[in-house]
């Protein structure tokens, strides 16, 4: 058995550049699939961060019917109110419901004006809940505390001069928000999300005083007592909100999103990306398989004499068939192996790239079993492509083959 592989390997080596060119299709296909698998977690974290999903335990409630662009929940026709927050908070299944506001406004620094979003940080226990939900510890300075009035914490992009103010904003700098002066006391770490990396964190009272949103609420963040009751909690909240907003089932002007729903959306996006790559990979592998058929057919024609010699010294048809089958399988396997190695490298680089660009900490995923299956698959694809040429080789008449 080993000798068939040795022989096959020698023959592939002998054909040099032609073997490598034949491998290309399988190589590209497998590299695409393996890089996709290796990138898996990185890709997911990239998409999740762009969706602003940072916690998997919180239900969010938003008013529907947006009439302007902005962060989730802002600019609704019939906004949520503080009474809604209190009503949800009183549900038995709910541990805590808090208001979240994300008003837009003007920020001035270095004689430049920009428009962006701010978000409110509540006092006491609610503050801890929000910080946990946002999950953005400071990389400079500190986060806001109860009683901070003329102070703000900024997202990462302000700190690295990506917010459009001509220079980085540092701890201790003053910025004008809606023409009022605030001191920058902290910068949060990179989240990889456009919203969170460009946001201004401000305590509830000064922000409300400044923006005047009063009782209006953009998002209600709801923590559930038991994570397993997420769906039940969603139903209860929907029922309550339908009653409060006087709408029938199916005509809701609000949206209650569970983390599962958000994750499902992420998975949909990932699924589409993966489907696209898999289609490209499949086409590439198909082209590779056709290449193997072509190369092996040529090889049978070129090696007729060798086939004749082997038959003269006792090779049966099945030996010749097996020899050529192993050879074409090996073409697939070598292509697959090279593709898997390059794919893992691309996946690794991609993950490092995503991590550094988005500030995520995803790990490259190397699934050994899947990798072995990929290699076995490439061998099988090669072998299947080699069946017809191998049959041609086996059927050669020894006298004719020796005379060629």
């Amino acid at each position, binding site marked *: 058995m*080993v*000798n068939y592989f040795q*022989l096959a390997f*020698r*023959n592939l*080596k*002998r054909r040099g550049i032609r073997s490598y060119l034949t491998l290309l299709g399988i190589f590209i296909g497998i590299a695409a699939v393996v890089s996709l698998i290796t990138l898996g977690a990185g890709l997911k974290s990239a998409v999740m961060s762009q969706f602003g999903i940072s916690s998997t335990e919180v239900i969010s409630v938003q008013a529907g019917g947006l009439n302007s662009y902005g962060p989730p929940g802002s600019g609704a026709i019939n906004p949520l109110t503080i009474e809604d927050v209190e009503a949800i908070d009183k549900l038995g299944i709910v541990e805590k419901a808090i208001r979240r506001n994300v008003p837009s406004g003007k920020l001035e620094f270095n004689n430049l004006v920009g428009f962006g979003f701010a978000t409110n940080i509540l006092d006491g226990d609610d503050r801890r809940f929000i910080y946990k939900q946002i999950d953005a510890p400071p990389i400079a300075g500190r986060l806001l505390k109860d009683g901070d009035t003329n102070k703000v914490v900024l997202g990462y992009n302000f700190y690295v001069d990506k917010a459009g103010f001509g220079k980085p904003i540092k701890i201790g700098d003053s910025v004008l928000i809606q023409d009022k002066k605030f001191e920058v006391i902290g910068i949060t770490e990179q989240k990889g999300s456009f919203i969170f990396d460009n946001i201004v964190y401000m305590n509830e009272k000064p922000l409300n005083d400044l923006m005047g949103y009063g009782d209006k609420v953009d998002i209600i963040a709801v923590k559930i007592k038991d994570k397993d009751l997420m769906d039940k909690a969603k139903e209860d909240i929907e029922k309550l909100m339908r009653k409060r907003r006087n709408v029938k089932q199916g005509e809701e002007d609000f949206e209650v999103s569970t983390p599962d729903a958000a994750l499902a959306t992420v998975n949909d996006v990932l699924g589409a990306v993966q489907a696209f790559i898999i289609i490209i990979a499949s086409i590439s592998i198909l082209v590779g398989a056709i290449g193997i058929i072509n190369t092996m057919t040529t090889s049978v024609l070129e090696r007729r*004499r*060798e086939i004749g*010699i*082997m*038959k*003269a*010294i*006792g*090779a*049966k*048809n*099945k*030996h010749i068939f097996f020899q050529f089958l192993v050879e074409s399988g090996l073409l697939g396997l070598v292509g697959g192996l090279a593709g898997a190695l390059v794919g893992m490298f691309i996946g690794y680089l991609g993950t490092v790239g995503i991590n550094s660009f988005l500030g995520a900490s995803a790990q490259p995923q190397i699934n050994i079993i899947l990798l072995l299956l990929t290699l076995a698959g490439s061998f099988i694809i090669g072998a299947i492509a080699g069946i017809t040429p191998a049959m041609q080789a086996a059927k050669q008449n*020894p*006298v004719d083959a*020796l005379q060629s």
Partner: protein
Amino acid sequence: MKKNKDLIRLENISKIYDLGETKVKAVDGLSFDVSPGEFVAVMGPSGSGKSTSMNLIGSLDVPTKGKIFLDGQNISYLHESDLAQIRGQKIGFIFQNFNLIPNLTAKENVMLPMMFQGIDEFEREDKAEELLKLVELSDRMDHYPNQLSGGQMQRVAIARALANDPDVVLADEPTGNLDTQTGENVMKFLLKLNKQGKTIILVTHDSDLALEYASEIYWLKDGKLEKVTRKKAGKWVKLKK
């Protein structure tokens, strides 16, 4: 002289090649037999049917008419896989142009026929080394054919032909691509094998070679057996066939 039990017997063999409108009779009504331990030459000019005869004796091809017996077994109309089995076990081929597999070393070339007989790798390796020693190529075992001279390549081919300890060695113009001295050395090897009991069938157009080394010569002409001569007490006598 009374012969031993025949190792090879051809009974009224014909081989006709169908080339569409024309049919070519390469061998026509050929009969002869070879006993174990003989050194036989099949002689004839180009087109006399000696290569076709060799293919038939070597079970590389089957006759259109007639019967071929190898060691008592009728191999005339066997399936290709059965013929391959017979070739592998009972016949060793030596070709004019050596026919070594270029991307295998001398030792691997000698091991190859044993692989097709399912012999395990260690045994194959030992036997190959032993045979290469026999043909005085111990120092060239790991050389590839393109690193060997013509004579060395033909000696590797002899070692390969002996790999499965066949009943008969079929040598088709074994000196055809070699200079005189090297050709002589190769023939001496074949003679040595014959003296050790191996049956040798030499197919050649070179009458000097046949007369010098063979003990019996089958002279072919136009696909037919013209005459048979046998060496008796150092002299060639024509036998009635």
